[in-house]
């Protein structure tokens, strides 16, 4: 027979004003299995808690029901007291007599009767409670940061500065991301490289950070605190230890006319190359697709000229396997190319460029050394047309959302152009100017008033080339949709920000969700903006949606704090209310029949396949297994499993069925 203790609280008069507390305690004392039942003015006060502690010892109680306020208020308090009394804390339950009873009903027998029903329900439940131990999982205190743009850099430095190890994996030969390509940045117009480069160097030199560039995540296993990740280090064809970064190889390489990715095709690079002078690490890689030695078996000039003999043509991709505790995804974004736009010439007009190309033209270290010159003939354009929302807010052909950053960078471009070409004229076709941010609207106004950017409200229908000019056909909707035709020297499309290439496959490798646009999905758009649905994996920067630098950096610092919090303990304590698939004796092993219908419903990918093997190692049966490290205890799988093979601690089938019966039936 159970020995349950029942403690009914008056809460001053909050409960006792409408519920006859003494009566509740008296009735409860007659419930089967109740060994002790009292009522008291303030159960959460010290003397109240002491009553519980003492009663456990004196009356040898094996279960506690406190009839008081909402468990959301004092469950931790009473579980602590229960533990102090020497019982497992999960043997304590609370009946909500205040928020769900005394405060919401009138004084009277009905209210008291309801209170009795609630207490009886919890008494029956607690009889079926089992001692639960909080789940402890060890934590590997190394974080993996995927992507080395400004978000990744910030996250890595913040985590590293808390004293934890960081491994950074960057796909390109250098870190820096899009920010390293920018000329100057809104809303302050400070030089992008100037503020970013020192941070890039810091990453490379930080004792807590290991940097792998030209590398990608191959696969991921495990769960929060205990991930195992495989990283593919693509062959750079040089021995990084020997290479001093002298650059001789790049200068001498005869294959020079390869469009540079960093310069957005506006400049060239050699087959062995460092993407840009400030690259980190400042060591070259050989582009195997263009190197004549790899493609035709001839050349090896770089090998000959290298003073340290660092070239390794036979180098192969390397797979590293490392253990990590948390991951921050910072893989950023991309923009649509001009070839996406049929009405603007399918990308064939050389002088129709995208925003990043304009950044390179405006950059002091860019292909024109910061002079705005048009790609076709190098002339300085006297008239530039900027087209905002190119591909954004365009459900028909592009994407539905607003790319958020383009209004601002277009205003910036118009401004930079005017600063460099004083007599030039900038026209901006726009639909709305979205400049919500600190000093943003002021920035746009400056572009319009001081730098004479001519904003025309309307979308451009077509751009075509004629006699070396680009004819831009638009309309001014503020003038009754009056047709407007501008003969421009150059056209800049503020093309939509889209998910980074390969984001979808990375998401699948990491088992995190992504949205319809293939951006990574946050666990909650407002309250968990840097978390994913997978415990231990966080997000930062433009991999979630187009974001500007301040937002990317704030998110990165936010994610870093989440990682640091995770790493602040040696072990993770997790709520023990997790699901489990039953195991029975052979030959059945489990009532699970291996239908795996439960697998897709789990929001946390916690359900795995487990093979039950015989002594010879032959698989007899494949059943579901729940990874307690990943399960968050929602119970969806429990309700789904038709074979009742899954149950969930704290809300077992037996417990909840009993509650229903007890609630509706008096003894």
């Amino acid at each position: 027979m159970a020995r349950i203790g029942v403690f009914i609280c008056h809460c001053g008069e909050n409960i006792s004003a409408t519920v006859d507390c003494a009566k509740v305690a008296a009735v409860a004392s007659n419930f089967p299995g109740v060994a002790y039942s009292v009522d008291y003015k303030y159960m959460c006060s010290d003397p109240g808690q002491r009553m519980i502690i003492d009663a456990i010892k004196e009356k040898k109680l094996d279960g506690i029901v406190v009839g008081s306020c909402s468990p959301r208020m004092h469950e931790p308090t009473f579980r602590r007291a229960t533990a102090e009394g020497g019982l497992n804390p999960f043997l304590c339950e609370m009946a909500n007599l205040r928020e769900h009873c005394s405060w919401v009903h009138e004084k009277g027998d009905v209210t008291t009767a309801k209170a009795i029903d609630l207490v009886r329900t919890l008494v029956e439940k607690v009889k079926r409670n089992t001692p639960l131990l909080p789940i402890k999982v060890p934590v590997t205190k190394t974080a993996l940061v995927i992507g080395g743009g400004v978000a990744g850099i910030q996250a890595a430095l913040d985590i590293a500065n808390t004293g934890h190890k960081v491994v950074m994996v960057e796909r390109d030969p250098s870190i820096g991301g899009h920010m390293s390509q920018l000329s100057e940045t809104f809303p302050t117009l400070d030089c992008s490289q100037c503020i970013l480069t020192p941070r890039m160097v810091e990453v490379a030199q930080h004792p807590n950070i290991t940097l792998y560039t030209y590398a990608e995540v191959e696969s991921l296993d495990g769960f929060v605190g205990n991930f195992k990740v495989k990283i593919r280090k693509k062959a750079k064809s040089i021995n990084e230890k020997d290479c001093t970064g002298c650059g001789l190889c790049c200068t001498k390489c005869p294959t020079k006319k390869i469009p540079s990715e960093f310069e957005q095709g506006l400049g060239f690079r050699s087959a062995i190359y460092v993407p840009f002078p400030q690259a980190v690490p400042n060591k070259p890689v050989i582009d195997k697709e263009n190197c004549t030695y790899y493609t035709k078996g001839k050349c090896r000039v770089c090998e000959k000229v290298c003073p340290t003999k660092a070239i390794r043509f036979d180098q192969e991709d390397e797979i590293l396997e490392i253990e990590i505790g948390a991951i921050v995804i910072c893989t950023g974004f991309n923009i649509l190319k001009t070839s996406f736009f049929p009405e603007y010439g399918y990308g064939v007009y050389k002088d129709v460029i995208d925003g990043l190309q304009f950044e390179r033209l405006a950059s002091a270290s860019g292909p024109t050394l910061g002079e705005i010159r048009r790609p076709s003939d190098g002339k300085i354009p006297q008239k530039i047309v900027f087209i905002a929302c190119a591909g954004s807010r365009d459900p028909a052909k592009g994407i539905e959302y607003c790319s958020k950053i383009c209004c601002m960078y277009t205003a910036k471009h118009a401004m930079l152009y005017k600063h460099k070409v004083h007599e030039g004229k900038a026209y901006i076709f726009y639909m709305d100017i979205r400049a919500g941010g600190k000093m943003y609207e002021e920035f746009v106004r400056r572009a319009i008033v001081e730098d004479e950017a001519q904003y025309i409200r309307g979308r451009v229908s077509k751009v075509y080339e004629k006699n070396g000019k680009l004819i831009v056909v638009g309309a001014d909707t503020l003038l009754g949709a009056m047709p407007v035709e501008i003969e421009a020297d150059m056209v800049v499309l503020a093309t939509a920000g889209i998910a980074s290439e390969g984001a979808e496959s990375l998401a699948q490798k990491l088992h995190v969700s992504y949205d319809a646009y293939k951006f990574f999905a946050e666990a909650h758009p407002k309250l968990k903006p840097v978390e994913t649905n997978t415990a231990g994996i966080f997000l930062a920067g433009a991999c979630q949606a187009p974001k500007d630098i301040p937002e990317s950096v704030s998110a990165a610092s936010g994610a870093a704090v989440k990682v640091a919090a995770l790493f602040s303990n040696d072990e993770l304590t997790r709520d023990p209310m997790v699901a489990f698939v039953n195991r029975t004796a052979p030959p059945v092993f489990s009532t699970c029949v291996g239908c795996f219908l439960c697998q897709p419903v789990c929001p946390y990918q916690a359900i795995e396949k487990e093979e039950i093997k015989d002594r010879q190692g032959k698989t007899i049966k494949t059943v579901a297994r729940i990874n307690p490290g990943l399960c968050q205890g929602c119970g969806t799988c429990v309700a789904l499993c038709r074979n009742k093979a899954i149950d969930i601690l704290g809300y077992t089938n037996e417990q909840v069925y009993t509650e229903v019966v007890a609630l509706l039936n008096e003894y």
Partner: protein
Amino acid sequence: MSEKFEPKVVAFVCNWCTYAGADLTGTSRIKYAPNVKIIRFPCTGRIDFMLLMKAFANGADGIIVSGCHPNDCHYSTGNFHARRRWMVFKSMLEFMGVDTRRIVFSWVSAAEGAKWAQLVNTSVEEFRKLGSYDAYKQVAKLNIEKEVFNG
């Protein structure tokens, strides 16, 4: 006192939204019918529909199931699964002759204390009109329940 029929109502609610919402009803001292008694679940996704049948079999005249609004689920998608399952289950119940008007589905967030009170009151009113669910109790004369108490 006139003998007005008082339906017995069980509410299955999730811990994160509706349970907290009902707490707020209390903190706001908004009054509602005492017929409804709440059982707490981690998520509406946990609620399997045999539980509802169990409640009817044990004398419930009406049931309220309530959790987080779509997209606000603490577990991100649990409530969607609950909803989807309910769509399937509902047609099955109707086929079996169960009076599905006696099962009310709703969303009440942690901020919607007043909505909870209103939901309870309108549901109770509805169930009262429907009267005692004797039909089901008759069908399901299951006595195993009594055994449970002695477990």
